[in-house]
């Protein structure tokens, strides 16, 4: 242990942030991936689901492995596997190979994250402080993931999301190698093997439910912004960055209120309220997503830290209980995405049909000349064919605008009315799914409330 703790703590936190960012970093890239790899929304959601599913299944076994093998070696190997799989993700040309690489990435990530929790107490000198750093790094990574992924997708490509993780994982692994070398040289593990206590069932159940609600929120909001309202990935990244910014604000409240149960309950209520707001958007305007996002961001900081602290508090060994929280959170993400995807894909097909019907009515009843109507109808039909299965952008069908000022005004008005109908359809298609995510969030209040006597 010759290195100063500070760079090692930074490396350990970076490793946790990097791996947990991966549970959400591809969210903004999904539309790009499914266009480039010619997949459906349901199929491409497995890029997200596979990673979270493997994390959920592998976290606890990985924590046991870390304790047997030595956390330094487990973290270093985990990060190396994660880096290699990230490279494979970037080089994937088919959805199947991308999903397979994501599974391997999750295996490496699970080993690294749980091993780090075993390394942190020895590095920072206290289990409580270690748990706080670990939970904060994980929440920051998960919250920043979508915005970073969106920026990289827009500025470079979706592949760059994975490529950039390779040097970061290697950089995080370098300081950890010293611990791994020490373990290999001495054969002594830096942590004693203690009896594993039972995981905190209620806290982990609440974590799973709230993670399902948050995953639904992120996944749906990104799809609404990009596929429904046609924002660019960078535009959507800027919009959804409100959530991590507000999460930072929310983390300051954590110090003001000591009761973990109150923070968990308040966080769950804020997240559910925010999701309820997204389910009831009164117009297709980005500004209207901001108040719900503020509430979700603050709620996220409150509930995740409170539940993670509770699940780890006074429990040993930390890696195993950390593994349970990782497992619960990622299982929640999987449940959230799998629960809302079929509802959302069914609703978007129905709303697309209703919006096109309403749009056709607008064209039929408009005052433009019949010849222009027929011309417009053909162009609109072509747009619908080009964007089969999606909510179409109708603007190009109206280009070029007529030269006659009166006719131009009528056509512009027609375009706006038609786009309004499509916006209504696109926005409403997401409402039931946001509503279900809100209900799942509210459901987490049950284990939080039941844990009253257990002191959550």
């Amino acid at each position: 242990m010759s290195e100063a703790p500070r760079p090692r703590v930074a490396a350990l936190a970076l490793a946790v942030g990097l791996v947990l960012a991966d549970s959400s970093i591809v969210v903004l890239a999904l539309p790009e991936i499914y266009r480039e790899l010619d997949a459906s929304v349901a199929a491409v959601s497995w890029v997200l689901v596979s990673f979270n599913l493997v994390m959920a299944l592998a976290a606890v076994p990985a924590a046991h492995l870390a304790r047997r093998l030595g956390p330094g070696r487990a973290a270093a190997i985990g990060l190396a596997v994660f880096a290699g799989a990230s490279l494979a993700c970037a080089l994937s040309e088919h959805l199947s190979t991308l999903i397979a690489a994501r599974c391997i990435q999750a295996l490496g990530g699970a080993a690294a994250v749980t091993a780090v929790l075993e390394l942190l107490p020895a590095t920072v000198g206290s289990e409580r402080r270690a748990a706080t750093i670990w939970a904060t790094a994980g929440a920051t990574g998960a919250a920043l993931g979508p915005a970073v992924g969106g920026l990289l997708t827009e500025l470079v490509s979706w592949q760059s999301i994975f490529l950039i993780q390779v040097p970061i994982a290697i950089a995080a692994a370098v300081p950890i190698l010293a611990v791994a070398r020490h373990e290999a040289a001495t054969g002594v593990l830096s942590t004693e093997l203690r009896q594993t206590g039972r995981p905190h069932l209620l806290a982990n159940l609440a974590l799973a439910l709230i993670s399902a609600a948050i995953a639904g929120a992120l996944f749906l909001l990104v799809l609404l912004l990009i596929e429904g309202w046609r924002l660019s990935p960078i535009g959507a990244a800027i919009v959804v960055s409100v959530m991590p910014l507000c999460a930072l604000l929310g983390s300051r409240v954590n110090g003001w209120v000591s009761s973990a149960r109150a923070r968990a309950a308040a966080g769950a209520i804020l997240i559910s309220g925010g999701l309820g707001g997204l389910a009831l958007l009164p117009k297709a305007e980005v500004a209207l997503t901001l108040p719900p996002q503020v509430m979700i961001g603050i709620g996220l900081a409150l509930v995740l830290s409170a539940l993670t602290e509770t699940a780890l508090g006074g429990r040993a060994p930390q890696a195993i209980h950390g593994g349970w929280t990782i497992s619960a959170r990622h299982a929640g993400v999987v449940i959230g995405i799998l629960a809302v995807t079929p509802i959302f894909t069914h609703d978007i097909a129905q709303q697309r049909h209703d919006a096109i019907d309403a749009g056709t009515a607008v064209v039929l009843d408009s005052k433009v000349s019949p010849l222009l109507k027929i011309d417009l109808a053909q162009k609109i039909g072509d747009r619908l064919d080009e964007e089969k299965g999606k909510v179409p952008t109708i603007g190009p069908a109206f280009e070029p605008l007529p030269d006659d000022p009166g006719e131009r005004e009528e056509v512009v008005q027609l375009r706006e009315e038609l786009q309004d109908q499509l916006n209504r359809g696109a926005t409403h298609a997401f409402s039931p799914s946001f509503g279900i995510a809100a209900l799942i969030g509210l459901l987490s209040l049950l284990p939080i409330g039941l844990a009253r006597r257990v002191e959550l």
Partner: protein
Amino acid sequence: MSGERRGAILVGCAIVAAVVLVGVYLAAGGASYTPEKTQDPCKHRAWTNPEGLQEIAQQFTLSALDGAACQLGVSRETLARALATPEEREHFTERYDITDAQLAKAVRAGLLRAVDDAEEAGALSPVLAGPLRETLRDIPLDRAIELINNAESLLDQAQGILGPAQELLEGFLP
């Protein structure tokens, strides 16, 4: 302030924020922000004082679409898109399990309803309406669809039935 009190305040604030947000969005019309429902094609739609051949033709087309859609049990808008191209029509008949004969019958019924509506609105003289009905009763499907898409030609055809002069037809129209 005790920790418990701070916790209660935090939970109270969260409840208020959630209720206010949902309430404001509901009051702003969040529950009704959906695509407008299309009208029932079987319900009569009044003609809106058309002026000139072009506007009458438009109203005529809409009435014909309503009549045909009513008979087929689909919306006017769905039928309008189905009749736009032969490919769309084929897709439509497959999807709704409709034969060409059923479609032809419905389109003819729609055209006849349009003649009735035009007559009722005072946009078409009974002198023109009678021969038009006769023409439409046995019209082939492709021609009927063509007429729905371009009702002006139908009214021109009516002129052909009655006499040579364009002015004569215009004379019958308001």
